[in-house]
Structure formats: C-alpha cells, structure tokens
C-alpha cells in the first residue's frame, strides 16, 4: 500500500542523506520525495510516498524516522483529508497542424504552455499524481520527447472531512 509521509526536519547539512539512508537501510521503497523550506526559518519539510507491505512496516518507518535527532516530527497523513500536488513538465511533439487538437486535451487539465519550438511544445501540469498520470496517457500518442515530475508535496486540510479519532472521543 502507498502511504504519504511528511517529515519535518531541522535544516542541517546531511539531513536529506540521513533520512534517505535510513529508508535504504531499512529496505523501504520510496516512490517519490520532495523537500523544501517551510514558513519557519531553519526548518524544512519532506514529503514521501512510500510503498509498504503492511501496517507494522509503516509503524516501524515512522518510529525509525522519529528517532533521528534532526527530525522534529513525522506524520503519516495518508488517511487524513489532504491536498496533494505535483508538477510535471512535458515536452510533446506538436506540429502546427496538430496543435489545436493537443491544446484541447491540455485545456481541461488546466495545463499551461511554458515553451514552444517549431515542432515541440512544453506543457506544465499541476495536480495530484493521478491527474498527471491521466494527462500523460492522453498525450502519449502524440509523442513525448521529454518528461520530468517533481514528486508529491502534501498538506493536511484545515477542515477535516472525516472525523479524526480525537474528535470522535469528544463527541
């Protein structure tokens, strides 16, 4: 099963290495990883998508990550109501005679054109990973020259649709 994990870390040199090294040592499969600064100075946040076999494995992962001295907080946010975003840049073979057709595919995905050549167009798509997968599948027949994805970053929504366990105790 896929899990979305966010890790809040102190922004020391080597901290990324520490976290990915740990995942490697404990044989976890990382599907994607993003990292960047947060609103707090000196604090960064990583978002992972990992593939694990069972609950026990994910519990181990969270505990092992929490144990790292430079890690402040680890959250498995998979079961929360979350916003997930990924960005993809896709260079598509788009000769002038097909461009209108291709753009009609791009529009519903709210993609934007960020570069254009004689026969190629580069689109930027932002959304959750499934949306990007779907877009790629639609555009593939036209010929993808180059593709790059950033990996997922995620947030817990302010208003949780599903009652969290804590709230249910209060009710």
């Amino acid at each position: 099963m896929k899990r979305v994990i966010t890790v809040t870390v102190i922004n020391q040199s080597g901290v990324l290495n520490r976290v990915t090294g740990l995942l490697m040592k404990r044989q976890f499969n990382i599907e994607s990883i993003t990292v960047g600064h947060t609103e707090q100075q000196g604090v960064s946040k990583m978002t992972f998508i990992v593939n694990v076999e069972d609950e026990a494995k994910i519990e181990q992962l969270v505990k092992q990550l929490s144990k790292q001295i430079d890690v402040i907080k680890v959250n498995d946010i998979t079961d929360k109501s979350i916003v997930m975003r990924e960005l993809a840049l896709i260079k598509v073979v788009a000769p002038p005679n097909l461009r209108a057709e291709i753009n009609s595919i791009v529009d519903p995905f709210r993609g934007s054109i960020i570069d254009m050549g004689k026969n190629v167009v580069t689109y930027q798509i932002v959304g959750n990973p499934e949306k990007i997968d779907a877009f790629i599948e639609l555009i593939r027949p036209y010929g993808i020259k180059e593709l790059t994805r950033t990996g997922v970053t995620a947030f817990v929504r302010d208003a949780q649709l599903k009652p969290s366990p804590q709230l249910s105790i209060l009710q």
Partner: protein
Amino acid sequence: MNAQVPLKKQQPATDQEVDHECKASKTGAEIFVESLQNQGVEIIFGYPGGAVLPLYDALYRNPVKHILARHEQGAIHAAEGYARVSGKTGVVIATSGPGATNLVTGITDAMMDSLPLVVFTGQVATTVVGTDAFQEADIVGITQPITKHNYQVKNVQDLPRIIKEAFHIASTGRKGPVVVDIPKNIANAIFDSNAVEEATINLPGYQPTLHPNYLQIKKAVSLLSEAKQPLLLVGAGVLAADASKELTEFVEKYNFPVVNTLLGLGSIDGNHELFLGMAGMHGTFTANMAINNCDVLLNIGSRFDDRLTGNLKKFAPNAKVIHIDIDPAEIGKNVPTEIPIVADAKEALLALLEQTFEVQDLTLWHEYLHECQEEYPLWYDDDGDGTIYPQYAVETIHRLTNGEATIVTDVGQHQMWTAQYYPFKKDHHWVTSGGLGTMGFGFPAAIGAQFAHPDEKVIAIVGDAGFQMTMQELALLKEFKLPVKIFILNNSCLGMVRQWQETFYEERYSSSLVPVQPDFVKLADSYGIKGYKVEKVDDMEAVFKEAIESDEPVLVDCRVKELTLVNPMVAPGKGLSEMIGVKKG
C-alpha cells in the same frame, strides 16, 4: 582574525595582556580540551595523526589522560569496555582518513550494543573537504547509518555546543555512539569568546521518554496479575538504567521467574533461585522452555534479537507480551506486543513497584520450571583423558574469583561457555560484544574495563583466533601496569565456525582449523608480561590460581579440548522449543 596571531608574537605583551589575550583567543583545539574537561572526561583512548595534531598539541599542554592504543580499533574497543562497566561515556580520538575508518567496526559495535561513546575524528581542512585531499575520508557519510548522530564542525564557534550535544545524545535515552568530525583548520581557528554566550544544547527533535505512561503500567499490572505462567525477559536496558536492585526487588515481591539475554547477564544474581539462565541460541533448556510456555512475557530492556528469539513464528506462542523499552522503535519491531511501555527501565520498574497487586498461584509453574532444570541442566562431555574442557576452565575461573570478577570475552565458543558457566554475582561486571559479534573486541575491551575498575580483577577470556586480531594492545598492560588476566581458551581453531561446519556442513572444515599460531607465552614475554601455558587438567588449577592471584598482568595459553561443541543449541530457523544437544549422549 588570523592576522592577530603573528601580531601577538611580535610584541611581547605584559602578563595582564597575555591573560586577556588568552581568554579572548582560544583555538578550536583548546576549546576541545576545555569542553572535555567540562564534561568530566577522565580518560581518552586514541591515536594521533596529521589532521589531529592541533588537538593533540592542546592535550599535551592541558592534559586529560590519554591512552595511546596500538591500533584505532584497540582504542575504540577499550572505550567500549570502559563505558560498559563504568556507565560513563567512552571517549575516542583518531586522525582523519585511515584513523577514522579504523574506528568503523567499533562504532558499529557500540551502536548495536547501545554503548555511549563520543568519537572525535580529525578531518582535512574545510577548504579542501570534498577534493579527495590527502587522508580525506567522508567519515560523516560513512558513519551515518552506524551512529546515533554525527556532526562535522564547520565553524569553530559551534564547537562548544556540538561537543555538549554529542555527550548529551550519547549518554541519554537509548545510549549510542556520536561522531564529531573536526577539520584541521577548525581546530586551529581562533574562537571568539565574546561572540557567543554559554553553549546551550539545542535539540528540538530529541526528547527521550523516560517516565512510563501510568495507564500502560496499570494495564501491565492487570495482565501480570492474571498470569498463571508469567516470565520476565531482561536485557541490557536494565543494566544501562542501573536498575538491577529494582529488578530483583520486583521479581522477589511476586516470585516471578527471570531469564536474561546475553547482554543482560548480571542484572540479577546468576545464582538467584528465580533466575533460569540465559535464553536464546545457546541458552539453557529451562530458559527457552519458559519463554515457550509462558502466558505473559514481560520484556524489560531487550530488543528481541534473532539470536534470542529463534524462529519468530514459533516465539512465545502462548504469551501476551508487555515490552518496556526506552526506544519506541524496538517495540513491536520483531514481536507483536500487547502492552507497549516506552520508558527508562528503572523508572518503569519503580512504577511497577509502586503498585501492589495480587498474583495467581504460581506453584505449578515453578514446579514445571524446576523439573526442567533438574532434568536438563547445562552439561558437557568430559571423557577424563586429562585434557582441559573449556567449560571446566570457565568454571574454575568462576570458582577462583568467587563469581565477582569483571569478565570480558571475545566472540566465539568461549564467549558462549563463559555466558553459560560464569554466573555473575554483580551487575556491570560483564563485557561482551553481542549485537555485532565482533572478534577482536575482548582483549582491548578488558583494558578499558580495567581502567574503569582499577581495583578489581579484570579477566579477558578470549579465543586463540580473536585474540590475534587485537593482541598488539599487550603493550598497554605493560605501559600502564594494568593487571588484566588473559585466558586464551586455545582450541587451535575458529571454534564457532568449526562447530557450525561440524553440525550443518558435514564436518567440512573449510578454513576454520588454524595450523600456525604464535607462541603466546613468548609473545607475552616479549612485552615483558608473564605467560603460562597449560595443557593438562591436572596442572590447570595451580596455574589459574597463581595467575588470578597475581597483581600483575598475566597471559595464560590454556590448551583446551579441540573438538567440543557449545550445547545446547537452537539451530537457525528453529524455534526455542526445538533445542538440540540438550542431554548428554
């Protein structure tokens, strides 16, 4: 800042000015020594080299006792032995590159066995880090998965804080090794004492839980009070928390039987009537059957290592598990746990002792365990041919030291025999490499233990092969007049390897028989150390007695029966109830 230094040389200053200057312009190296003194460090084990020359110069001028080992591996194992028996943090220093990489085995060993170490390594100057400079090794990268934490100092102003944090991290929570890598130019840099306030620890991501959750303690108590066949499994966590007294009080209060892990030995008197022995691969039959049959297993400070559990699917099949550990990641890692309790072992035992609860009638359970003990005690062959059986040699050492010596072993058959046949009277008297199983550990660790326990008998029981991995440290016995007694249980082979080849590889002794050995007595003699060789059981007692009673270092090359096995045994892949070699014949 650097420009000030030559200036100072050119113009001799008045005394007052010098004093002022010194305060304002300490080097990183001086800060290093000062920080060690602030930490109360009494002894450092190390080996110098180019990148640490500034640090060694500061040590020369402002001494903290430094022990020059003969190999960095010897230095770090000595620091481990010191840490194990004293409970204090062991301190190691080595140069960059090869000096640092020679420490890797010891760092890993300390990580696996949760020993508090602070390891200082030299590094090439920050200006050339990353250029494959002479004797550069990425020791921070190399030790990242084998340390509790590590640092490279990039600014001399950070040095006091980093050293403070390193000692704090190493010695609290689940203890472990911390590496501090100090580039040479940082050691030489001038520290501006006006720029910083007193160094304070700043570790927002590190807050070990020491106190148990009250509700979890309540749950544990209710489970224990229902248990008809309760059992305590006690590991080194109890020793690290210095909780032997509380443990003994707790089990005596309720008459609970106890088994130990290899590293937990000594947490309860080895002759205590509630103690069933070591459990696991070479544990006692009774200890393993107790785990197999218990209905509630209270694990305090052990991490359910595979050498202890055997086949996990068959481990403690009837038991509900309560697990007390200071490291939450150990709970539920290998064995499903009903009641997790994250806490320091002593705090948890005190919380348990505060509760008073009724327990079930345990008579039948004790009767069963007693029958196991009567029927399947530890045993070994002795065909009376005049040769020395290694188990008997250990029993003799036990008798002659009254079970009170500090015993240090290397890794192999002799280690298991010592664990089996040397019941410890006291805690903190047992030093062995458990998690990593590091050959070469024993002898230097005994040196460290002797530094920590200067007035006690420290005995290194080692194998002929493992001893040869670090025997260069013999020089230290002479140099520092350390009365360590070395007993080589010499079976002329890599005994433990040979045992597995005999048992699982149809006696194909591939590279496990050692045809050439040094003359160990002459070797000792060449270092100015008294050596004995014994081959006949009739001569053993007298030699052992003389060795143990001596106030000097002594080496005994004790030739033992070669083809003996450590019994009983849980074969790999088997469960604890499937031991082989449980009875003679």
